[in-house]
């Protein structure tokens, strides 16, 4: 009996074994299913062309240029003239041989990049002779091109993703372009669009044998958007020219809309440097320049003490808090004692009496020290409350925090509050006189140029600002521009006196050089003390030259902040540069050629050498 049943039982057991294996392979273990898809289907990605970038007047800032990669499939390579090919692509014969053996090692059947990013010109030569080299072909790629090599600090650059990026965003695969910094990074998704997919059926040799399932799974690419920036190409270009051989930043904003017209940082770099084959080499050079820091956006990232322009804000706060009115007058004798034995210098002559207006246009330190003390001492119940009220007003101008503009870099700046001084001086251990430097924009306050341009715009608007931004519109696709209007805590009636004062600064005050015939310019100069650690010793350097301005006075079209590092007093560099920019922007051309030439040709390079010369040096000469 057992002999008769042996084979039937074995057969059934075998069937049971097979079925259980099938259950585990086909019904439970899903890993084999996706493997199959990877195995037999080639997924080919179709990239939409990366979006162009235009300025506010639809002038082209960034476009694309075709480049070619020389590819080779080792299996297909026949005998060829190695020397000739090496000569054409500018490689030595041994370099070419190394590349070919690397290709063979990679795969006999898969394409390998022999030479990447061959320019249009080189391509023409190779194209002509490629028929001689079986197994080689040229593959088109697209790189960024900058018709006007400007605004690299705004635009950022594009490079290929690395493994780290791929981990962060699953969208990318190795070697795809992605925006790094600037507009390219911030609006990456608009600029790149969404890549499409095409599925091909392949065989086990990786050869494509037709489209997969007649293409029903193919996904068409979603178009990339062209961006129209708020930047004015001409103004930007002019600003960059003016800052040649200087260090500093320019931020120009259209007050009514918050659109950034120009953001100049000097020294900068030619955006074309970060395109193409020598990109990584050039990037290393730029990134390692720790002295002039070309990759550091001084307009957004540099934090300076604001200096005298800050006086306008103190004036506004004093008016709002009612601790002064426009007729409040203080006496200045080349400065004043703000505490026993503590004297603050001022350039106002002995026996000068200043009201608010003349306090502003003469930039009288004594006047602002007095009103600052009144703000701190009188606006609240005690100095702590006083300084917090003062701070609250400043924050409403966008100081002390990120502005929230559409670029990825920035600094908060700093506006001290009571707890800050309580920490340093112990609670009750400080008075308004202790922190008197804040009155004139020195002391603990830090602002970035874009924050200064922004509060200038808020003054120009008489009490509000729109969050500064760089994207005006997009050429296609959805875009809703909605930038909230931020109202300052200062009532609009208080602005007129301050604005009158700023107008007088240009008309007959510290910045007469900034006056433009036919345009009512309002401004405020600043001369900012600054220090640097040289061999561990805090050393004072030549003052920063600072100027804020807006124009025209009654219907402001442009508000700007100009900062020239170590440029000495405000009207020496910053004010003329600001004035030229206003003239350029409002009139379209600059008539004051003498001033223009002086600014264009002026160089501060000698000044910047001083701290590094290793010798004692004189500042403010």
């Amino acid at each position, binding site marked *: 009996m057992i002999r008769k049943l042996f*084979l039937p039982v074995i057969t*059934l057991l075998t069937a049971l074994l*097979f079925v259980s294996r099938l259950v585990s392979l086909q019904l439970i273990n899903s890993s084999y*299913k996706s493997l199959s898809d990877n*195995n*037999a289907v080639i997924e080919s990605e179709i990239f939409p062309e990366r979006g162009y970038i235009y300025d506010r007047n639809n002038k082209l800032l960034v476009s694309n240029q075709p480049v070619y990669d020389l590819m080779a499939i080792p299996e297909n390579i026949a005998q060829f003239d190695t020397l000739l090919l090496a000569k054409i692509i500018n490689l030595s014969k041994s370099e070419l041989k190394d590349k070919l053996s690397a290709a063979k090692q990679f795969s006999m059947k898969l394409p390998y990049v022999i030479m990447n990013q061959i320019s249009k010109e080189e391509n023409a030569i190779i194209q002509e002779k490629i028929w001689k080299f079986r197994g080689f072909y040229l593959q088109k790629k697209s790189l960024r091109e900058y018709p006007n090599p400007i605004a690299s600090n705004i635009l950022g650059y594009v490079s290929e993703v690395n493994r780290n990026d791929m981990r962060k965003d699953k969208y990318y695969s190795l070697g795809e372009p992605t925006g790094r910094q600037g507009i390219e990074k911030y609006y990456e998704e608009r600029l790149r669009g969404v890549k499409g997919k095409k599925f091909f059926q392949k065989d086990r040799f990786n050869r494509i044998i037709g489209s997969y399932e007649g293409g029903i799974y193919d996904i068409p690419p979603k178009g990339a958007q062209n961006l129209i920036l708020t930047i004015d190409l001409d103004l930007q270009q002019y600003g960059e020219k003016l800052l040649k051989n200087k260090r500093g930043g320019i931020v120009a904003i259209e007050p009514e809309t918050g659109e950034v017209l120009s953001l100049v940082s000097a020294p900068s770099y030619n955006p074309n440097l970060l395109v193409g084959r020598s990109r990584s080499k050039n990037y290393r050079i730029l990134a390692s320049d720790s002295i002039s820091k070309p990759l550091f956006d001084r307009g957004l990232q540099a934090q300076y003490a604001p200096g005298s322009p800050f006086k306008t804000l103190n004036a506004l706060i004093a008016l709002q808090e009612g601790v002064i009115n426009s007729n409040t007058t203080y006496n200045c004798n080349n400065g004043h004692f703000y505490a026993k034995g503590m004297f603050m210098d001022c350039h106002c002559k002995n026996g000068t009496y200043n009201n608010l207006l003349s306090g502003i246009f003469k930039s009288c330190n004594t006047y602002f020290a007095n009103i600052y003390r009144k703000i701190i001492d009188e606006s609240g119940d005690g100095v702590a409350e006083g300084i917090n009220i003062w701070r609250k007003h400043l924050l409403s101008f966008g100081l002390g925090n990120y502005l929230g503009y559409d670029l990825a870099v920035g600094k908060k700046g700093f506006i001290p509050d009571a707890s800050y001084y309580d920490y340093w001086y112990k609670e009750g251990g400080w008075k308004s006189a202790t922190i008197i430097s804040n009155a004139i924009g020195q002391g603990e306050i830090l602002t970035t140029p874009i924050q200064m341009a922004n509060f200038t715009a808020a003054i120009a608007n008489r009490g509000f600002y729109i969050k500064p931004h760089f994207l005006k519109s997009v050429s296609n696709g959805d875009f809703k521009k909605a930038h909230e209007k931020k109202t300052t805590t200062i009532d609009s009636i208080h602005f007129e006196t301050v604005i009158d004062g700023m107008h007088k600064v240009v008309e007959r005050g510290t910045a007469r050089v900034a006056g433009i015939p036919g345009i009512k310019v309002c401004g405020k100069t600043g001369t900012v003390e600054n220090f640097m650690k040289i061999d561990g010793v805090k050393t004072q350097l030549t003052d920063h030259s600072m100027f804020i301005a807006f124009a025209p006075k009654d219907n402001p079209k442009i508000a700007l902040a100009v900062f020239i590092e170590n440029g000495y007093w405000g009207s020496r560099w910053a004010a003329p540069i600001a004035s030229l920019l206003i003239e350029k922007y409002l009139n379209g051309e600059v008539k004051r050629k003498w001033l223009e030439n002086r600014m264009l040709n002026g160089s501060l390079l000698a000044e910047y050498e001083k701290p590094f010369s290793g010798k004692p040096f004189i500042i403010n000469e």
Partner: protein
Amino acid sequence: MANLLLLMSNSLIYRLDWLLILIYLLLVAVGIINVYSSTYNESLNSIFDFSQLIGKQLLFLMISIFLGLIILGINIKFFEHFAPISYILSIFLLGGLFVFGKTVSGATSWYDLGGISFQPSEFSKLGTAMMIAWYMGKFQSDIKRPRTLVTITIYLLIPSILIMLQPDPGSALVYSAFYFPLLREGLNFTLLIIFFSVLALFFISLSFEFIESIGIIGIIFLIIYFVLKRFIRRIKIWPLLLFLIVSIGFSFSADYIFNNLFEQRHRDRINIFIGKNVDVQGVGYNINQSKIAIGSGGLKGKGFLKGTQTKGDFVPEQQTDYIFSTVGEEWGFLGSLTVILMFCFLIIRILKRAEKQNSKFRRVFSYGVAGLIFIHFFVNIGMSLGIVPTIGIPLPFLSYGGSSLLAFSLMIFIHLNFDANRLNEW
């Protein structure tokens, strides 16, 4: 011919095992469909294009059925006389390969008959089945007697050694199928135990280092010793010790055989099976691709001609040895299950009818056919599923290959004839 059929028909039609014929036709139909899918390409105009694989397969199917019908009409006495002749003929054909054979991928297994290849090793299965049945059917034969056992062993060894020499070890292995009819006829079970012990020892020796193997063998023997001690009071220790020493000696020689007598490809296959050196792109490629193809089928499969693995030609020899992976991919779990159940039914049906035979010759033959189908079924599907090492033998009725289809069809039809006429002793 037609007259003969007509004469037979009256009674034969009622006596034929129609259920078995149905299963047979279903299996060959499944075979044609899957071979078509595996070999499908755009240049195929008609499935009757005999220059294409599918056309050849259809041609062979028609020849098989035609010859099958003739077989059904032949008097069963003829087969008993014909058995030794068929065996001798197949041995000659196998021997002739060394002179006239065609070498394809290293093995001289084919005769080239003007565009159509003919594989004698497939027919020698039939011939051997006939011969074993004939010899067992002789009144003086008794498998319990050493003389019979030795003779049968020689009959089996001649074709398997000839096939080994081609070399085609897979097809040689098939002759172990005759173990089943012999077991049915009273072969000593001890031989079964020894056979499996040798197999187990072989794999243990290869899977582990020599010292480890000795340890494992020792532990197994201790367990056996204590188990036996419970049932048999006075156990003799000497035979067991002898067995242990022989085992260790075998284990040692297994290493030697494996490393010195086997070819690298055989070593690779066994290594993959026992889990050493698993290398997805290397030798394990076939098994892995086959598993991927089958796994990707899911419950319902991707559908006829929709198998991406099949189309992309990822599974090597898919139309022959790996035909089951096409079934798995395109027809999914349900299709695979159906095929497996059909084979089970086929084998058990043949066995059930064979038990009713009162002629030993016919019983042993049918049993041999069932055993052969089982071995192919077990090894081929087991290999596609990665359960059995890669051994290249076809899946009966499904795999592409005219010789195999024809040989198995003839076996089925001879069995049908035997079955239909089991009460006729003309």
